[in-house]
């Protein structure tokens, strides 16, 4: 079978956008082989990147600067970390904070002393400072005070911290922002987009976070040494591995999925193509079955350790744990010995499991098939400029046909009712951050951002009724420039079936955490812990190898907790 025949066959098995692009399902996605953290570590390992720590100038008060270097064949990158002494009352994860426990930037190359001095004047200020085209990422992190102090005190006494506490919290520090492309003076994406080590999405940002994880360990061990002197211990390997980096993400990330339809298509399309390829496997080998069955147990363990106080997510986790019971029962039958076992398993899950369980299985069936699916990772990016221009020659009839193909779901929504348009996406003057307000309670409509494609398509559809089928879009837009944004979107989506969310993004019941979960799962995050309906904590790189372990330890083998941790 040629590759194109194989692709064709796979295409016929692909789940439809109507099935996949629903917020409830997107809000149940799990990390997978194609998640960007895993893609990054896999690539760094394959390309034999080397890592070191040229500076660690942290004084007796625990403040100072450290650098972490990643050295590839052609390029070197350096995380410059500034450690601060932050009074407890100033520690806040919210975007209104103006001081942090530690601040970071990712430097392109090896910074000189002058560079470090320049960065020391700016990076600790974050949004209020200015970095340059030599920097790719600006970030900051706060301690998880509870765990950080527990680990520090234990190590200072020469003891190891309580492993249960470590696994419960999962990180010493959490980032509260990781700014990339062009933000606050940082290099634009086009400076590094062609570098092979960064192909895909968000690779410089996730390289920074991975190196921040090393800094968090070094920092707590250093402080323990200062406190305990000779009797101080280093963290054992098991404790270290269980520590990731936390992240606190608010609404700022949610409109991204709506604003970048061709990019989102490329992500979802890669994952759905991967699933289709695996479902196309006629027979599973003994090895493939063994890998899968082992990972099902480890994913179950991961779900058992998934703690959240958020009612909605807690119910979903309970449902996932029940789903795992059903999955174990199903796997006890001989389903994996039948032909097309993965297709059968996915079909069964569709009937029997909740969204959490279904999407967990989608991620798990990809695991044994790196050779079949990992080549999709570089397709997970998009040249948005190439689809910018509107095709004015398109007829009104053709545009209507695009709408009926892609937006059938809006017919069920009553946009004349208040509940369907209850929300307004806007940007706050105070923090330049996207926010979600109540249309009928606050004066926000004049500031509304175009982030409700369903409603906007409905308006367009009504206007198009007054136009002849053969009229051109050029003529239509000349009279109705107010529809220009949504017409561009519809045309852009022509070859991007997974680019649109098939749900109303301004409905009174819409949960922004579903948007956040979708995006963060593609990053590779785990342990989603919503703190409200629009703010979520997650863990990144938990169980992953550290830089000095990467050569020996396959990161793909570390994506789920080890069974002996149970």
């Amino acid at each position, binding site marked *: 079978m040629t590759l194109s025949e194989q692709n064709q066959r796979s295409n016929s098995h692909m789940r439809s956008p109507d099935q996949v692009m629903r917020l409830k399902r997107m809000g149940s996605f799990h990390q997978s082989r194609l998640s960007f953290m895993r893609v990054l570590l896999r690539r760094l390992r394959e390309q034999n990147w080397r890592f070191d720590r040229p500076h660690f100038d942290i004084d007796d008060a625990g403040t100072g600067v450290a650098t972490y270097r990643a050295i590839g064949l052609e390029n070197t990158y350096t995380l410059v970390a500034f450690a601060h002494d932050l009074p407890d009352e100033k520690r806040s994860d919210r975007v209104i904070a103006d001081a942090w426990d530690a601040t970071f930037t990712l430097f392109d190359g090896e910074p000189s002393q002058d560079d470090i001095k320049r960065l020391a004047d700016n990076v600790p200020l974050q949004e209020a400072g200015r970095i340059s085209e030599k920097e790719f990422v600006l970030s900051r992190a706060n301690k998880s005070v509870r765990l950080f102090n527990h680990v520090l005190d234990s190590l200072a006494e020469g003891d190891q911290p309580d492993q249960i506490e470590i696994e419960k919290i999962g990180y010493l520090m959490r980032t509260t922002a990781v700014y990339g492309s062009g933000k606050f003076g940082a290099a634009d994406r086009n400076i590094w987009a062609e570098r092979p080590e960064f192909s895909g999405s968000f690779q410089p940002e996730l390289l920074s976070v991975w190196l921040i994880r090393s800094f968090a360990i070094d920092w707590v061990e250093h402080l323990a040494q200062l406190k305990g002197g000779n009797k101080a211990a280093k963290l054992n390997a098991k404790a270290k591995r269980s520590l990731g980096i936390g992240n606190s993400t608010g609404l700022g990330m949610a409109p991204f999925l709506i604003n970048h339809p061709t990019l989102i298509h490329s992500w979802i399309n890669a994952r759905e193509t991967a699933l289709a390829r695996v479902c196309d496997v006629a027979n599973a080998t003994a090895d493939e079955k063994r890998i899968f069955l082992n990972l099902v147990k480890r994913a179950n363990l991961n779900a058992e350790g998934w703690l959240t106080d958020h009612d909605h997510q807690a119910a979903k986790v309970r449902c996932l744990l029940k789903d795992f019971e059903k999955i174990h029962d199903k796997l006890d039958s001989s389903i994996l010995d039948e032909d097309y076992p993965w297709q059968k398993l996915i079909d069964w899950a569709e009937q029997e499991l909740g969204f959490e369980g279904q999407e967990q299985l989608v991620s798990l069936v990809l695991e044994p098939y790196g050779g079949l699916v990992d080549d999709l990772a570089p397709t997970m990016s998009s040249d948005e400029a190439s689809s910018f221009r509107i095709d004015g020659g398109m007829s009104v009839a053709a545009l209507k046909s695009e709408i009926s193909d892609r937006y059938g779901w809006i017919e069920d929504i009553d946009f004349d009712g208040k509940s369907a348009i209850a929300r307004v996406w806007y940007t706050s003057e*105070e923090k330049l951050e996207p926010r*979600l307000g109540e249309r009928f309670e606050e004066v926000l409509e004049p500031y509304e951002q175009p982030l409700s494609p369903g409603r906007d398509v409905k308006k367009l559809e009504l206007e198009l009724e007054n136009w002849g089928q053969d009229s051109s879009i050029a003529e239509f*837009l000349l009279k109705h420039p107010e529809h220009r944004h949504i017409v561009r979107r519809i045309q852009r989506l022509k070859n991007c079936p997974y680019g649109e969310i098939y749900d109303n993004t301004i409905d009174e019941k819409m949960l922004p955490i579903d948007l956040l979960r979708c995006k963060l799962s593609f990053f590779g995050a785990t342990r989603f812990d919503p703190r409200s309906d629009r703010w979520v904590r997650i863990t990144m790189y938990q169980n992953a190898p550290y830089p000095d372990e990467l050569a020996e330890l396959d990161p793909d083998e570390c994506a789920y907790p080890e069974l002996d941790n149970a």
Partner: protein
Amino acid sequence: MPWGLAEEAGFAAERLEANGICGADALASYLQNADPLDTAHSPVLLGTRLSDANSTENQFPALINEPILIVPFLQDFAGDKTLVLSWGATRALITASGFSVEGPQLAASGEPVTCELSTTDKSGSGSDRTSRVPDERSDAMRILEDLAKKTYAPATEESRAKGAGAGLNDND
């Protein structure tokens, strides 16, 4: 200006800047000086009209504000030729690969000026692609940022609490 047109205005300014031409200044000047209700002389509307119709026929000579802003829209019509957009003492040379400008880039008065479109055998020299507006022209960026601010909602205590949706305790 509707969102879809604002996107085109941003496209034009950014594409000019990437070619080392002061698109930010031109856009700032146009938005500051021109009457927003005067659609007849809008370079953004003319640019989108050319782009949507996929034709430059019967559109020139044209009397418009800051003609430099049309240059990016004309690029798709260059093919293997060099197009020349000229007004006053200025000639903008446009090829499929880039643009260059001889003479002042901005219209002197801020008033609409007459521009003509022609072709030439002379090859236009593209300039180096850049991704930054140079610091010495930060005034234009400040004007554009001030205009962008008009789309941002003023914060209220209510929106701060509700809109951002932070929990009561974000520490642990």
